């Protein structure tokens, strides 16, 4: 079993090096990549079934050499970041890296000899969920990249073609993610944490123009702030309790470990782009689409909530936990409202990501069995549906030449299959009874029992969520007769395969959620709380009736209306009686006026700059309270 874990960390690393050094002209490159991706999917599935009825397992590893190796690499990474920052004349990252390095080196030299780590790695149900997400979705996104990147460079001749380097970073990212989720040794976790920071920095800056450099450095700064606080947390934890292991952290006295836990949660907030750190994620959309998909669904931000969920049991019944809940709540509500005002598709997706993660963070803060149950389900549902949507937008962007939702009129006429896939993703994001809504349902109950204010935030936030998804859905499925410029054949098979996998996965996790809940989530909750939330069987039955009802009615109905129903008379749309054609009408002076249909964005109410700063300031206050109360 331990070999499987080490394999999952080292194998993507190996592939990434292969990607870097194999010449691009090599014909077998994509075949090797495909096989590697298949392996990356298969191993976590094997882990799932091999440990189906087992509790968590911990692994001892002779770690002397590994620790030294990590330390050396950490110094090298720091040196590299300093080099890049100085070259770009940005000095904040330099300061942060130096502080972090001094902290870790000082710690290593004064305490390094006395650190005793019993179990360096571990595997429990939560790690398996994360491994499945990273393995399946992460490698699916890499697969998509095979088809996407050539087109990317066609469309952006000004960007230097560094595809090998790109693939290297993508697989390195996956490797670091596996490292994060299997590490029990906090020093290791921290090392992998910093590797993901570096990878995201380099990937966001892939285009190497001004906008992407700005975004990349913003991401770097915010994640380094998180990293510095993480490092402080490790030092405080060891000095006060002589512990360096994640599982032992939960067994210690709350008074001793609360401050380190809050530090780790802070690092998690930065990584999962919660307020006040949200701007790095919305800036990250300058990167090529696979990067956005990877950051938003299976890696980066999920690493943040992973860590928060791991340490939140320590914070049980504290003011800090309440503040964490509120920070999640504020992020959830404010970003859902901002998303209403955005017409840039990637930005809508980005804000929706922050919003959903806010809900997960809030659940972590509440930390009851029901809350954690829905947090885990949210992680799963969000990962599949959101990656699917990002990849769809990536394709649309090149087929329509725009990523603006306003340009997606009649998408169903132009890219019918893609629109269908997108509808699946969107339904998974907000529509009852699919995906997110199941967990929102349980979340609401958990909130009412602990914190009614959160229930209110959830009520308003859900309404906002309905708004921006429904109007987008409406945009892409509007039909205008005669508008048939199908460009779908230009989408590569790599991309179709990925979309297919993810679309099936989105539906599959909805149908399989009782299985997931029973075999994976419930055992984890038993280990944490000794109880599991009782979900009403009748409700689940109803949810399934609706789900299967839709899965049966929709295809049948579409088939009926497309081929069988002939009893109708088709007319043009009503244009005030002055139709010239379907899209023009007669205006004054016999002029021909075209019609244009636009969505509402309500800038005045939900404008980005207005709400964003409210979110930042409120959450900053909450963070200060969180640290203040804990430090006292």
């Amino acid at each position, binding site marked *: 079993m331990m070999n499987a874990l080490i394999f999952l960390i080292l194998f993507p690393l190996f592939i990434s090096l292969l990607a870097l050094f194999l010449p691009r002209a090599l014909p077998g490159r994509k075949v090797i990549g495909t096989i590697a991706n298949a392996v990356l999917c298969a191993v976590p599935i094997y882990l799932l079934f091999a440990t189906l009825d087992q509790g968590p397992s911990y692994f001892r590893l002779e770690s002397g050499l590994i620790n030294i190796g990590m330390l050396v690499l950490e110094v090298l990474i720091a040196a590299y970041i300093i080099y890049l920052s100085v070259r770009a004349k940005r000095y904040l990252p330099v300061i942060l890296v130096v502080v972090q390095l001094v902290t870790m080196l000082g710690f290593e030299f004064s305490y390094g000899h006395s650190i005793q780590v019993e179990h360096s790695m571990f595997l429990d149900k939560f790690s398996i969920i994360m491994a499945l997400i990273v393995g399946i979705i992460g490698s699916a996104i890499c697969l998509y990249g095979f088809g996407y990147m050539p087109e990317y460079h066609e469309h952006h001749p000004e960007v230097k073609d560094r595809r090998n380097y790109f693939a290297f970073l993508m697989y390195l990212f996956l490797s670091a993610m596996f490292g994060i989720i299997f590490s029990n040794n906090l020093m290791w976790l921290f090392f992998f944490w910093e590797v993901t920071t570096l990878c995201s920095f380099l990937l966001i800056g892939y285009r190497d123009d001004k906008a992407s450099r700005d975004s990349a450095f913003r991401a770097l700064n915010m994640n380094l702030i998180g990293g510095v606080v993480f490092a402080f947390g490790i030092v405080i934890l060891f000095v006060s309790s002589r512990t360096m292991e994640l599982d032992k952290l939960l067994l210690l006295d709350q008074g001793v470990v609360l401050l380190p836990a809050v530090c780790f949660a802070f690092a998690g907030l930065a990584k999962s782009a919660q307020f006040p750190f949200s701007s790095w994620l919305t800036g990250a959309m300058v990167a090529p689409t696979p990067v956005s998909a990877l950051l938003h669904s299976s890696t980066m931000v999920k690493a943040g909530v992973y860590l928060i969920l791991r340490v939140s049991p320590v914070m049980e019944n504290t003011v800090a936990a309440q503040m964490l809940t509120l920070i999640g709540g504020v992020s959830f509500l404010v970003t859902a409202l901002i998303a209403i005002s955005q017409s840039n598709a990637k930005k809508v997706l980005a804000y929706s990501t922050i919003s959903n993660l806010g809900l997960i963070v809030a659940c972590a803060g509440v930390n009851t069995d029901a809350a954690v149950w829905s947090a885990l389900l949210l992680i799963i549902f969000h990962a599949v549906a959101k990656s699917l949507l990002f990849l769809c937008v990536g394709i649309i962007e090149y087929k329509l030449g725009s990523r603006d939702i306003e340009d997606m009129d009649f998408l169903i006429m132009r890219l019918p299959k893609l629109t269908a896939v997108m509808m699946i993703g969107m339904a998974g994001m907000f529509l009852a009874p699919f995906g997110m809504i199941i967990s929102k349902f349980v979340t609401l109950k958990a909130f009412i029992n602990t914190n009614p204010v959160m229930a209110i935030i959830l009520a308003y936030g859900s309404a906002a969520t*309905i708004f921006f998804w429904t109007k987008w859905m409406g945009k892409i499925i509007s039909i205008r007769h005669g508008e048939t410029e199908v460009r779908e054949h230009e989408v590569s098979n790599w991309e179709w395969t990925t979309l297919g996998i993810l679309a099936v996965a989105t539906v599959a996790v909805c149908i399989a959620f009782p299985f997931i809940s029973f075999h994976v989530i419930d055992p984890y909750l038993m280990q944490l709380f000794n109880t599991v939330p009782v979900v009403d069987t009748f409700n689940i039955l109803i949810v399934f009736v609706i789900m299967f009802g839709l899965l049966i009615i929709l295809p049948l109905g579409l088939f009926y209306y497309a081929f069988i129903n002939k009893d109708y008379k088709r007319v043009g*749309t009503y244009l005030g009686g002055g139709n010239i054609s379907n899209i023009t009408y007669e205006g004054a002076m016999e002029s021909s006026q075209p019609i244009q249909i636009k969505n509402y964005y309500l800038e005045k109410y939900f404008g980005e700059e207005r709400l964003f700063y409210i979110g930042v300031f409120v959450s900053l206050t909450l963070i200060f309270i969180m640290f203040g109360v804990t430090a006292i």
Partner: protein
Amino acid sequence: MNTIQEMFQVWSMLERMLAFVLLAPLLGGLIAGIDRRVSARFQGRYGPPVLQPFYDVLKLFRKERIIVNRFQNFTMVLFLIFTIFSGALFFAGADLLLTIFSLALAGTFFVLGGFCVGSPYSHLGAEREIIQQVAYEPMVILMAVGMYQVTGSFKVSVIAQYQSPLILYLPGVFAGFLYILTIKFRKSPFDLSMSHHAHQEIVRGMTTEFSGPTLALIEIAHWYENVMLLGMVYLFFAFNPWLGIGIALLTYLFEIFIDMNYARFKWQLTFGSSWLFTAVAGVSNIIVLGLMKI
């Protein structure tokens, strides 16, 4: 006095669902007929026969099927199916939240129908319909939250048989619910997205491109929905079934009264006032209940 509750207990869940599916359109249509009659009296007219809505719907079914695109009617069929389904869930005594989510699903299909025809009027109506949904959604969820706080359950069957008067614990929530009920009933001043009256600036809004049998389906779905909404009003007074039914009907009369006395609001005012009213009446009530529990 408790015959209604006894009836409720004697019938099985399926029987209750079936009763709703069969009886709700009759009741809903009748209410619509009375509505038109009362409204006419308010305006000094005589008004149509009480059964007029049924005649209208029957006539619509015999009309020619005129469409803009082939799939537009499918969305409305789905809208009807899920409206009936949520209503049946409600009267079967199932989970209130599930009912609300299912109704929201029906509403989404309705909106998508308005979008998919690609007509400017219909599009504008659909946009307004979403704004209306967003305006009432928080209050509807908070109503469920409030009932859960008092009774400890989301089950309609449990809430309906709660012995003390819910209204005493949830006056703010009830007031907030009344406010958004005007939106749900599609009454003035909130009938932005589509209106029964012929004088709307966006023609028939949402339903501009829907005619004949499909329009009839929309009308029937509306009847089902109204009965279900009155059922929600009933829950606040369920401790005394006759009082509950009386108040539910009074509520409808009140909505007619509002309808007659207000000109249509702009969406800005509709949306802003709904969220504000929800915040003032509903949220404060929820927080008070939350503090009482602790």
